[in-house]
């Protein structure tokens, strides 16, 4: 069952606000894909490929001079046609986004607890104690010990990894239909990224919703994704399930990406005598 369907998504930059293409070229040209219940679709690509723009377009967060066209169907409703007021109701409850930089996702002038509660208040009518409890439970499950103490902290007092876990905890409480993760591990060091990806694996298993995971790091994607879309210069150049992409990719760009990653990890695996978690 398709939870989210994107049809012919096109994003371009309007010059002079006239709706005309600036260079005659779109930033994202006619992407179509779908995410099923319980599935994780990864969008892989390097800088400038349009993967972040695609995520933001689904959430309709692309502002300024960016325009988009195409249908975005969530449970049958076309998000692209919704008035902004209704769209806001969808964000968080139905579509939850986990961003790259924990620091910019949180309000720096509030404690993280106050901020998370204000987000929950938008969608739920729960009393404060219930909110705190569900948050605490979620936080324990993502490996944040002493949740109440952490909730009292301010964003700048917490590390990047902890902020990411908080966002995942929020996603657990909100129970959205689709979780969109936009390069959540890119700004983290290798060990923290590993642990956060573990959390995502668990999140996938328990939430049962759908997930879109964007990254340029193939190692991360390999652990997590069922299906992979490879984007280059605004186009989806290849798609397939994880196994296929890593072993029998067709497009030269995909093979290039995979071989770059393989070279590094093969060297490491050989060094360690084949005794690593590399294949996940």
């Amino acid at each position, binding site marked *: 069952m398709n939870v989210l369907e994107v049809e012919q998504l096109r994003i371009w930059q309007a010059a002079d606000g006239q709706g005309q293409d600036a260079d005659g070229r779109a930033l994202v040209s006619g992407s179509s894909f779908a995410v099923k219940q319980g599935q994780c679709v990864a969008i892989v690509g*390097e*800088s*400038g490929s349009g993967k972040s723009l695609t995520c933001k377009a689904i959430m309709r967060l692309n502002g300024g001079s960016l325009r988009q066209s195409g249908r975005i169907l969530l449970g049958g409703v076309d998000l692209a046609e919704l008035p902004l007021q209704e769209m806001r109701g969808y964000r968080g409850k139905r579509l939850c986004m986990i961003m790259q930089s924990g620091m910019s996702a949180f309000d720096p002038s509030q404690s993280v607890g106050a901020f998370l509660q204000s987000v929950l208040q938008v969608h739920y009518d729960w009393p404060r104690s219930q909110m705190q409890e569900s948050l605490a439970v979620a936080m324990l499950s993502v490996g944040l010990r002493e949740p109440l103490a952490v909730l009292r902290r301010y964003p700048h007092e917490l*590390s*990047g*990894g902890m902020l990411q876990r908080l966002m995942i905890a929020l996603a657990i409480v909100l129970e959205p239909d689709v979780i969109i993760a936009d390069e959540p591990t890119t700004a*983290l*060091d*290798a*060990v*923290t*990224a*590993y*642990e956060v*990806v573990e959390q995502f694996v668990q999140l996938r298993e328990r939430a049962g919703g759908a997930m879109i995971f964007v990254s*340029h*790091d*193939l*190692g*991360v994607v*390999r*652990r997590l994704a069922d299906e992979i879309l490879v984007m280059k210069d605004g186009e989806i150049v290849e798609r397939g399930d994880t196994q296929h992409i890593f072993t029998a990719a067709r497009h030269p760009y995909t093979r*290039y*990406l995979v071989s*770059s*990653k393989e*070279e*590094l*990890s093969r*060297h*490491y*695996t050989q*060094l*360690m*005598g084949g*005794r*690593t*978690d*590399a*294949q*996940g």
Partner: protein
Amino acid sequence: MLKVEGVSHSYYKQSWLTRGGQQVLHEITFEWRRGECLGIIGESGSGKSTLGRLLLGIEKPDAGTVRYDGQPVTRRQTRRGAISAVFQDYRSSIHPFYTVQEALMEPLRLLELEASPRRLTELLDQVGLTPAYLAKYPHELSGGEAQRVCIARAVATQPQCLLLDEAISSLDGSVQMQVLRLLQELRSTLDLGYIFITHDIQAAAYLCDRVMIIQQGRIVELVETAMLPHVRSPYARELLRKVMG
């Protein structure tokens, strides 16, 4: 040869009235020999960036010494040209108002070395860029190109030791590989040695002869890369395990 002995360092609180700080490095002692590639691996907050700054001599350690060929590294004369660096943020590594040409000429002019167009083209060629890049501004370059320019600039003074502080961490996956290969090439063509500070064990294992693992300001392991599978300390074993291929 770079000799680090008993280096300890703390961060002091900003206020000028109170003295109280957080100790970031504890009694760090090791050596870097000419021509070798030494990796320094640590998580965020392990103190590796601070160690990088101390090795470059732009900060003075609270305790202990860092000496290059016997002279303290904090003296500009000691470093001049012999030690160079490439940093993580390629966007802020080149002055935004300077072209690539001007950026490359800066260290050459400073040390009164040859700065002719021929030399600049040679430098760019070594990192795989055409002379057309000379006229470009930093914001016109992609991540990989900008980092290559930074590498070209760093090797312009023909240093013996090149310190790479998370130099590939901000790059995309395949570009990281390109730059790693470039670094390997340069090592043999220019007879360079590296100190490679990173959080990425796979990259360090790929490039380095010897590897040092830091945890919370202390050296946990210091071994030849080939000996990595046999380290004993639990922290190091955890670190080696938590790798995503």
